[in-house]
């Protein structure tokens, strides 16, 4: 078998790009355009639908969007599924509530101005929590995150002098009403979610993010190849906690109350996990789709059927159906369909043309070896 010499000829970046480009993936321009259109739609939404009941659904959806994008930076990329991000969410809530109370802040604008501190508080508490929980893997990790979350909930109950215990804390809401009340929260959450998404994108294309993906696939091998696994996981967790902390801070001000059982709640992470899974875990856009599709639905059911627990039943059934119907998540499933479609079209075109002029290289010879069609699906 003749194999071309491995002469290290210098290639231009464009040539490399052409060689590496995924022929079945949308172009960069298509992707960028889609993001801009989505951002525009989300920006315009509360200006078009001005009913405060609708915009408040929008606000909660943006809170979820922000948090799930943050959650995905850690759990999605590293594969360490956290069901304990409510720790950072609750910490964000208490931070904001306590600061507002003790600093005697009354104006709505200055209340919102301290929200970044909620993010920092979430990030700060993620360091010790991370050092504890990141010692274990897989299911033990999942359960340990739940346990840590309950520790925080119980601590919030047990220190009434600080947290108000089971009576909770009140946050004076900003003195606005109707849409004037909703819109600042909506846009701040949207803006932060956009920053979160940019962070997620930067992580995904950085060496550090590549290390996280490698950890997800085979942590021991990643370590053996020189990835600093503990550091990578901890940094991802801290980044992720920052955005979830901000979501908590905004929520506390928006609702005006903080209770231990709602700040540190097992529900929260299950929502986040389901949103991320439904959209596509560990992808950039998956969590966005998940939150935008299911967030409003969750709010709608709660408003419509919230008087009884009928909404729990509907929502639970819906979860099961979606999880079983789209086990890989919407984005990867659709992307796969699209790839298969393009690949089959491409193969048909290739057959029509005949393969004579396609430049047979070592690569193509191997690629066309039996059982090695490029679009072959279904690994292990």
């Amino acid at each position, binding site marked *: 078998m003749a194999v071309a010499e491995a002469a290290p000829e210098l290639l231009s970046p464009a040539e490399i790009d052409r060689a590496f480009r995924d022929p079945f993936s949308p172009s960069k321009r298509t992707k960028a355009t889609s993001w801009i259109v989505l951002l525009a739609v989300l920006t315009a939404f509360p200006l078009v639908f001005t009913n405060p009941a609708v915009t408040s659904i929008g606000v909660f959806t943006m809170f979820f969007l922000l948090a799930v994008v943050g959650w995905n930076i850690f759990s999605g990329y590293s594969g360490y599924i956290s069901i304990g991000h409510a720790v950072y969410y609750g910490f964000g809530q208490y931070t904001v509530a306590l600061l507002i109370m003790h600093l005697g802040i009354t104006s709505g604008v200055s209340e919102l101005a301290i929200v970044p501190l909620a993010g920092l508080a979430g990030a700060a508490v993620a360091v010790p929590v991370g050092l504890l929980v990141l*010692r274990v893997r897989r299911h*033990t990790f999942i359960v340990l995150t*739940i*346990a840590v979350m*309950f520790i925080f909930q119980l601590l919030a109950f*047990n220190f009434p002098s600080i947290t108000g215990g089971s009576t909770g804390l009140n946050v004076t809401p900003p003195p606005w009403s109707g849409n004037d009340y909703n819109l600042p929260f909506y846009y701040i959450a949207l803006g932060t979610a956009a920053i979160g998404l940019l962070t997620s994108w930067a992580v995904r294309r950085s060496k550090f993010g590549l290390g996280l993906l490698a950890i997800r696939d085979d942590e021991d091998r990643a370590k053996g190849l020189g990835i600093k696994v503990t550091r990578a996981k901890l940094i991802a967790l801290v980044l992720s906690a920052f955005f979830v902390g901000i979501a908590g801070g905004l929520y506390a001000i928006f609702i005006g109350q903080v209770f231990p059982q709602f700040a540190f709640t097992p529900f929260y992470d299950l929502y986040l996990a389901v949103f991320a899974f439904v959209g596509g875990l560990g992808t950039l856009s998956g969590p966005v789709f998940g939150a935008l599709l299911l967030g409003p639905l969750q709010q709608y059911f709660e408003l419509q059927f919230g008087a*009884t627990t009928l909404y*729990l039943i509907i929502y*639970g059934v819906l979860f099961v159906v979606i999880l079983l119907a789209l086990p890989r998540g919407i984005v990867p499933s659709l992307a796969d369909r699209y790839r298969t479609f393009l690949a089959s079209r491409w193969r048909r075109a290739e057959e029509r043309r005949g393969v004579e002029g396609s430049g047979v290289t070592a690569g193509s010879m191997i690629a066309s070896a039996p059982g090695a069609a490029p679009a072959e699906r279904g690994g292990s």
Partner: protein
Amino acid sequence: MLVLQGIVDGILAGALYALMGSGLTLVFGVMEVINFAQGIIVVLGAYFTYTFASHLGVDPFVTLLLTIPIMFTLGYAVYMLLLRPIKRDRVIMSLLVMYATAVVIEGVLDLIFGGTLVEVTASYGTSSVHLGSLDFPNVYLLAFGLSAVLLAALYWILYHTKFGRSLRATTQNLTAAKLVGINVDHVSALTLGIGVGLGAAGGMLFGMTTPFNAASSYDLISRLLVIVILGGFGSVWGAGVAAIVMLVIEDVVAVVWSPVWGQTIFYLVLALVLMFRPQGLFGRRLARAQ
């Protein structure tokens, strides 16, 4: 003396938690499913007993003759319908599916019974046996006895029946079990049936010892998970020992300090133990390779 009473309370309650936790750890051992619904299953079992006992006017223990078969069937069906189709990311996907199932059951229970706390009562329920200054509530003694009987039955099934052998084989190596012709789906479904049945039996006892409503499931599942981690995922005996140790610690702290700290200690012990033994007290290895 208070401490001694705390230890007695802990051991008696610990046996009950061992029973409820055994179903959880058994299910995990066989199919790597974290049954997040185990908490609500316990509550469901308690509601079954509550309903049968109040409508049929029979002793709570007699209701188990109805409850256990019903719950066993439920478990079997849940596996076949909801868990068997899962092919990828089993651990987390099954957790999410079981969570959604739990939410549905919770919604149904709340719809039927509302949020009021109820308790299963029996004529002998409020009295207790006194030994010196120590107090042994009848209900807890009966709970202890039933837990012991059911766990012994579980032991017999695991080690003296053909099904038990298949089950243990599946726990050790899923692929190999498939290769030697064990119908893994059938074994898994039966196991979930047994796990759910044990949870329901525990639920009857839980309902006799604690006022409950649908929301009690969250406290339950988090405690059961802690017990199962400490015992080492998949180890029934580990869970039993962990349950008793943890409940004794909780009850002792509760009597000498305060009940709220008793609860907190529960989770703090977990954090401390895992710092030094990430695989739990009795767990052998972190996880199967792949």
